[in-house]
């Protein structure tokens, strides 16, 4: 809008300046023409003619150049004596009378003589009259009041000022018209940028432009709809798969579990059944995670946001972790700064708990030999700073590389972030629906590593989605996540979460 005003004011000023400039130039040219050209052509020539007319014994005689002059201009001449009689003439037309009264003289000296434009010059006691052919000259008598001429210093600037004002006024009117149609276009572009449908009127000067914008807008909306449809389809598809997979999985898990508890079987066989059962559980977790990740990615996860005190939530997750999961090798320590103790945020408790436990499980998973996990919660003005760090092996190279990409999303803010988010999701999806081969390899990889592990806990969240889900949950709460490997060993994840102002 501001830029539009600038455009308009510049337009109006330059239009007015052009108008005034033109006026001044025209005025100047007119003046120059008036005072140079006219003088030479008429007045000078009749004086010359008069000079060439001499009185000799045989009467009046027009000599050389004077005659040539008349000849060249196709003019005629006559000399009147004081009584108004023609005493000499040169090529006097037949319709011109031979004697004149004073009023005749006054008339033609100012206007025309029988439609002949004539000039007069005093010649001794008489009057020399030179006539041009009919319809070749205009004669105008100009009379300007003395006062006006004396006030010229006042009138000319006033004239210019009035003209300037008029010019500005018209430029403004035209500019406003243009401005109005430009404003429509500008609003249209704005709407288009915000993905609202645009239908501009296509008449007027900028009709073509408007039509182009309308077309671009409808194209954009078509694309947006197609994209949404695809995202929707993808999420629904994943949700459908995760639903459909549950029933067969339930059967497999049920029988495996039954075998595991069957007293008639040997221990070895029971162990094998146990492995099948745990793998079923892992598939279940994986499918749930995939479903949650895809929903969070495309904003289809309903968030139940309520006022949540963060410190108790973290303590309760940590306590649950220690109670149910943590083995002897791992320690978990929670410290909450004084100003974060009572802070609240607007959040989905279940999802936030999920994020915190995913972070803890991630540290445990990557350090089966044991590590010390430290959770710190601070508050810096408007934001909670939640740090989960361990002194273990740090992020594996491939994970860290992937997370590094997403680290840029926090640095580059929304627009870039969005793209990379999609990339990441794409990555996850690739593992599942496109790159089957890799998928199989990947799964086998995990299986080799984990199958023999009897500890349930280590199998949880050992697919790549744990940290992705953390990032998505934090993002859904308008926060950001930073992943780093510490120089002293181990890794650190810092989440910034906007707090509620009390």
């Amino acid at each position, binding site marked *: 809008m501001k830029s539009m005003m600038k455009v308009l004011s510049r337009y109006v000023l330059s239009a007015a300046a052009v108008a005034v400039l033109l006026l001044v130039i025209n005025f100047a040219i007119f003046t120059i023409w008036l005072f140079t050209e006219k003088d030479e052509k008429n007045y000078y020539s009749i004086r010359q003619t008069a000079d060439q007319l001499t009185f000799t014994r045989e009467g009046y005689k027009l000599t050389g150049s004077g005659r040539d002059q008349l000849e060249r201009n196709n003019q005629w001449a006559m000399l009147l004596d004081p009584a108004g009689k023609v005493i000499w003439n040169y090529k006097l037309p037949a319709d011109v009378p031979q004697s004149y009264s004073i009023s005749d003289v006054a008339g033609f000296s100012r206007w025309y003589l029988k439609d002949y434009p004539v000039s007069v010059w005093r010649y001794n006691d008489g009057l020399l009259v030179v006539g041009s052919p009919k319809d070749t000259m205009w004669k105008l008598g100009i009379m300007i009041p003395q006062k006006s001429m004396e006030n010229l210093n006042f009138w000319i600037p006033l004239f210019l000022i009035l003209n300037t004002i008029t010019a500005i006024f018209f430029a403004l009117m035209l500019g406003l018209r243009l401005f109005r149609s430009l404003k429509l276009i500008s609003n249209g572009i704005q709407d288009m940028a915000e993905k609202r449908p645009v239908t501009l009127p296509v008449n007027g000067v900028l009709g073509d432009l408007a039509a182009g914008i309308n077309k671009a807008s409808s194209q954009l909306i078509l694309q947006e709809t197609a994209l949404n449809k695809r995202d929707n389809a993808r999420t629904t598809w994943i949700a459908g798969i995760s639903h459909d997979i*549950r029933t067969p999985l*339930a059967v497999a898990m049920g029988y495996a579990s039954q075998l595991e508890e069957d007293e008639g079987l040997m221990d070895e066989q029971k162990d094998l059944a146990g492995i099948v059962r745990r793998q079923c559980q892992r598939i279940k977790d994986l499918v749930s995670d995939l479903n949650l990740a895809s929903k969070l990615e495309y904003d289809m996860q309903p968030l139940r946001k309520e006022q949540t005190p963060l410190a108790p939530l973290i303590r309760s997750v940590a*306590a649950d972790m220690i109670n149910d999961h943590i083995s002897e090798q791992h320690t978990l320590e929670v410290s909450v700064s004084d100003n974060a103790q009572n802070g609240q945020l607007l959040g989905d408790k279940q999802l936030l708990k999920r994020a915190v436990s995913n972070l803890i499980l991630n540290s445990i998973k990557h350090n089966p030999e044991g590590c010390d996990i430290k959770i710190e919660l601070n508050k810096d003005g408007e934001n909670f700073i939640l740090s989960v760090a361990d002194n273990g092996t740090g992020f594996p190279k491939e994970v860290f590389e992937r997370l590094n990409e997403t680290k840029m999303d926090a640095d580059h803010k929304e627009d870039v972030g969005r793209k990379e988010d999609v990339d990441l999701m794409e990555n996850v999806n690739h593992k599942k629906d496109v790159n089957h081969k890799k998928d199989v390899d990947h799964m086998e990889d995990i299986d080799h590593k984990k199958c023999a592990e009897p500890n349930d806990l280590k199998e949880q969240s050992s697919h790549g989605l744990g940290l992705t889900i953390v990032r998505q949950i934090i993002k859904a709460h308008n926060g950001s996540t930073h992943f780093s490997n510490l120089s002293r060993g181990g890794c650190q994840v810092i989440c910034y979460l906007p707090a509620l102002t009390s």
Partner: protein
Amino acid sequence: MIDVYDCKLLLVDDEPELRRMVIAILKQNGFKKIISAGNCSEARHLFALEKPEVVILDVSLPDGDGFSLMRDFRASSSVPVLFLSARDEDDDRLLGLGLGADDYMTKPFLPRELVLRLHAILNRTYFPAVLSQKLKPVFSLGDIKIDLNSCEVTSQKGNATLTAKEFALLEKLYENQEKIVTGDNLCMAVWGDSLYGYENTLMVHIRRLREKIEPIPSSPKYLTTVRGLGYKLTGVTVL
């Protein structure tokens, strides 16, 4: 009906394999009368004919959904219903429980869990007397004997009585023995408020409690502190 195993169960699921498995599990766990249906109309028919004591329902069925099926059943009886669904959305879970289902489990599930939940529902519905005797526990920590009914602590040092707050703290810790109870949860149980502002009060009460139940209160053995999180009661012997 003598016990829960005499209850007649109606299992409704459209997947024959799953029905077979659940029936096998339930039979193995002692349930004798199990009937099953693969769709809504069959289920309605069986329900009217057999009058089961409990229904296990799938949500998605070929000719309708479990939610409306439950509403139909509930129109004529107060039969307990347990949902066994492949839908794990919170919304579905809340809808099922909101409509008055007694429990909601998602597939895949552990057979043991299903059996335990089924027991709980049946006991609650048909044998409530078993659970009605609500005696508070009596237990010992080493040589110290604690009776939560009379709030008395007996040790070599003599007898002591627990105050109301100490009792509430100890009960909460006992219920979660061998597990960390966060300060937040303790405060919620005792004062009905969050930890913030109660840290010192909580510490004072814990100290007093330790003086009564710990042989050496300054180096606690049973009621230990978990730094930054809360407290933990260990070494309980139920008497």
